């Protein structure tokens, strides 16, 4: 088999946004390996200037359709931090529930529609309808459940409308919450069914490892997606959210003009695997079982396992939400009237997006109009990690032939679940024709 390859994947499919892969290798020596992102830049940080603090969420939610709830939550937290606006415990819990609904939605979408077809060697979920109809139906059912859940709490599945600085525009009724809880309880067997499907094709997950630094939120005693401060596998203790720039350290490497992120190493990884590696011991009981069943343990360094970590997290959010709804119902849902007034300030907000830690930072004048903004997106933080994975992986598999290499690289990109459309605002790409 020849070990000269020339791969040029224009627009990797089944990822959100546009990304290209370029690999040139002649007679076993790799000349070029590049992960490029040619998405049209969208300039959010510039566009929000002059807008009211009340409208920031509406605008930046549109950065990404898949993690719109996360962007909304991060920006709203930033706005609230900047203005010293307090949120009730009830609203805080409801937001976490909203966040979890997006997790289930996004993870199921990624596992079921975008990544799993690879494990089956299919080009999309469509042929699977014929091949594994029950599995597809289960995935669809879970996805619908997650979307209905977002609809209930966020007002819609994409671009939430119930989230405002200070709290929520409205809460679901207690009856609606009870119904939701029932549905969550009923979906546990479905999650197990998905686990079985994943186990049945687990042999197709490439055995590749590259140990790196894993960055995520951390809050004592819990597996957090929403609260806490920043940590990493290389760092004891935590960094305050407002200091996120000392973590992200956007920099321009020698061989490229692209802005990458690094903290304690040349690159770091964010996302499900990073969260898992930082806080696996706090997963819900069922999620722990699932992790054991799929052979995922703390310290895992295989990026292809991100998809598996997402499955574990999906189980965790379902189990945790059932309990949170109990807590909300015990306290009783009380309507809240939200009145906020602006003041000058600058602060950051951070939550874990399904694909990794997300930072939003805003400055406001005293009328509450935005003066400046800075947004640092998980996919942007992962680009360098993807590049470094490529650099280690390609030589290891150079003998497998062009098609297999191409397939594995695409799978790797998809494993990161990149949200390219939202990361382009900070990426710099060299075009190779």
């Amino acid at each position, binding site marked *: 088999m020849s070990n000269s390859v020339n791969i040029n994947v224009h*627009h990797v*499919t*089944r*990822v*959100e*946004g546009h990304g290209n892969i370029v690999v040139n290798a002649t007679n076993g020596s790799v000349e070029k390996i590049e992960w490029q992102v*040619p*998405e*049209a*830049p*969208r*300039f*959010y*940080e*510039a*566009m*929000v*200037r*002059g*807008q*009211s603090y009340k*409208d920031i969420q*509406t*605008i930046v939610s*549109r*950065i*990404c*359709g*898949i993690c*719109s709830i996360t962007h909304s939550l991060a920006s709203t937290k930033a706005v609230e931090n900047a203005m010293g606006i307090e949120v009730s415990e009830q609203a805080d819990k409801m937001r976490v529930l909203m966040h979890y609904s997006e997790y289930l939605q996004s993870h199921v*979408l990624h596992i079921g*529609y*975008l990544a799993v077809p690879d494990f089956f060697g299919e*080009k*999309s*979920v*469509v042929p699977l*309808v014929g091949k594994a109809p029950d599995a597809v139906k289960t995935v*669809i*059912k879970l*996805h*619908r459940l997650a*979307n209905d859940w977002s609809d209930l709490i966020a*007002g*819609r*599945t*994409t*671009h939430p*409308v*119930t989230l*405002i600085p200070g709290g929520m*525009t*409205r809460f679901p009724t207690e009856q609606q919450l009870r119904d939701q809880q029932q549905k969550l309880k009923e979906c546990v067997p479905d999650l197990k069914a998905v686990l079985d499907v994943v186990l049945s094709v687990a042999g197709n997950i490439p055995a590749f490892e590259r140990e790196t630094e894993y960055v995520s939120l951390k809050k004592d005693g819990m597996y957090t997606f929403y609260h806490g401060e920043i940590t990493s596998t290389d760092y004891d203790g935590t960094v305050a959210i407002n200091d996120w720039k000392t973590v992200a350290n956007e920099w321009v490497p020698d061989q490229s*003009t692209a802005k990458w992120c690094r903290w304690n190493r040349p690159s770091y990884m964010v996302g499900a695997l990073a969260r898992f590696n930082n806080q696996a011991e706090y997963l819900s009981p069922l999620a722990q079982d699932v992790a054991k069943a799929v052979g995922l343990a703390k310290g895992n360094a295989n990026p292809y396992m991100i998809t598996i970590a997402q499955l574990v997290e999906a189980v965790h959010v379902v189990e945790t939400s059932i309990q949170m709804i109990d807590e909300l119902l015990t306290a009783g849902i009380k309507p809240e009237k939200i009145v906020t007034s602006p003041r000058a300030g600058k602060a950051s907000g951070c939550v874990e997006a399904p694909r990794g830690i997300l930072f939003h930072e805003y400055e406001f004048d005293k009328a509450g109009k935005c003066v400046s903004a800075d947004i640092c997106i998980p996919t942007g933080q992962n680009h360098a990690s993807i590049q470094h994975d490529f650099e280690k992986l390609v030589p290891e598999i150079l003998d497998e032939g062009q098609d297999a290499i191409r397939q594995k690289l695409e799978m790797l990109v998809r494993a990161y679940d990149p949200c390219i*459309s939202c990361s382009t*605002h*900070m990426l*710099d*790409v060299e*075009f190779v024709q």
Partner: protein
Amino acid sequence: MSKPRIAVFDFACCEGCQLQIVNLEEEILDLLAGADVVEWREAMSEQSDEYDIAIIEGSITRPEDEARIKEIRSRAKVLIALGACATIGGINKLKNNFDLDEVKTCVYGADAGKPHLATAMTKAVDEVVTVDFKVEGCPIDRKEFTYIVRCLLLGKTPEIPVYPVCVECKANGNPCLWDQGEVCLGPIIKAGCGARCPSNSHRCFGCRGYVDNPNVNAAKDVIEKYNLDIDTLKLKMSLFGSQQEPTVS
């Protein structure tokens, strides 16, 4: 009759409208029974140059995109603009309120001059090519989208309301948000979404675009009645209405 071939393309956007198609869940299978989806990058790896219906998501923000959309138009019998970015330019048009060079410098600093960062004034799809149907909204409403698709499969022009959001909002029995101090754009924005935002107690921010004859004078009067200032209204109208008629002065 052979099934129409549908291709989905995206330009500058958040891809949330495509996601709404994914979110149709079981209904996608119904859709697939009536039409062949031949290209849809977000969900499948196949690609094709032959299609009857092109569904376009996103706004046109770069010169090379203009060429691409014209190419798509020349191949498609029917072109559908999907979602606010495509139908009215969407949130991307906020950019047009600033000097473009300044926008680039604001975000990319010293790298602003790089060729791939070239950006042009944001355009809705119909500012570049002819659009046959529009599916309004940010994101699109799933029910409305499937209704429109079914109409097209039937060969019928979809009946989309031309009246404002207030009709659907009132019909849902909502208390008006103006009475709660919100600047809701419901009275001047096209209905069809089922008044989703006001029904969730969130002001309408105008993602479906203006009705044909928005009464901006009335809006000004109302601003006075509620003791708000006109700049607030202007700012709200800029969210999804930047560089579009009408503006308040």
